[in-house]
């Protein structure tokens, strides 16, 4: 099956959160970022499913941190946006900006 190269809504939000967080992007901060900035409480399972798809598309890469007792001895998995992911973000922004512009209802020109 051919891989989709465009971003779904959840993928876009998660990729933006990963980009914003930089070196500190793992599951918990990503979910907090989505809650704070997008006002959405997203289940961690959904975030990891989106990250899994983004990794398959080569939009993010991941690396393991050190295990900590606070996490029951489990390591954090840190995600970083790749150049391909950054390119996809820019393309999505350009496409969305084009779609948003010139809509009278959204610009308040229409009642």
């Amino acid at each position, binding site marked *: 099956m051919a891989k989709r190269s465009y971003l779904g809504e959840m993928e876009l939000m998660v990729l933006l959160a990963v980009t914003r967080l930089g070196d500190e992007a*793992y*599951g*918990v901060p990503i*979910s907090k970022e989505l809650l704070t900035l997008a006002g959405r409480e997203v*289940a*961690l*399972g*959904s975030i*990891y*499913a989106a*990250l*899994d798809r983004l990794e398959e598309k080569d939009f993010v890469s*991941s690396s*393991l941190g050190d*295990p900590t007792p*606070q*996490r*029951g001895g*489990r*390591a*954090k*998995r840190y995600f970083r946006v790749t150049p391909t992911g950054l390119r996809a973000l820019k393309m999505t922004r350009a496409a969305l900006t084009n779609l948003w512009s010139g809509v009278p209802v959204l610009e308040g020109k229409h009642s």
Partner: protein
Amino acid sequence: MSSDKSQPPRLAIWCLRHAAPGRHNDALTGDLIEQFRDGRTHGWFWRQVFIAVTISILREIWRHWPHFGYAIVGTALSWFFWDAPALRRVPAWLHWNELPWPWSQIALELSRPGHPNYRQLVIPVELVLLLSFLTFLVAAWLGCRLPSQRRSANARPAL
């Protein structure tokens, strides 16, 4: 289950480990434990596990959709050819000897002819459908797995 409030439910972690396998399973479990120890409730933990397991199952079905498609079509066709007139009036319960093979054989082998309920053993039709579906699913899984194993065995260099 532990009553310690800092300990997440063990059964939930077990479910997560076994029902939602994946390369990020450990990281996800660690994140959930970290959040739980940060003040989340048992209910929250269980809800997160339920969502993760559901997503994992749906992803597995999506990844292996040819297997599931084969199982669904196979079950439907076997029912149609097995006893087409019965489809007009599908009984709610079936006797074990009406099960499709190999389940009828298994039921026969496991049953004891001397037992008083030997002749009365009946099975709900939903279970029969499920068993048929599982048979086709396993057949599809084996059909896809065995050739790839043979290929990898052939590709292994001789020592």
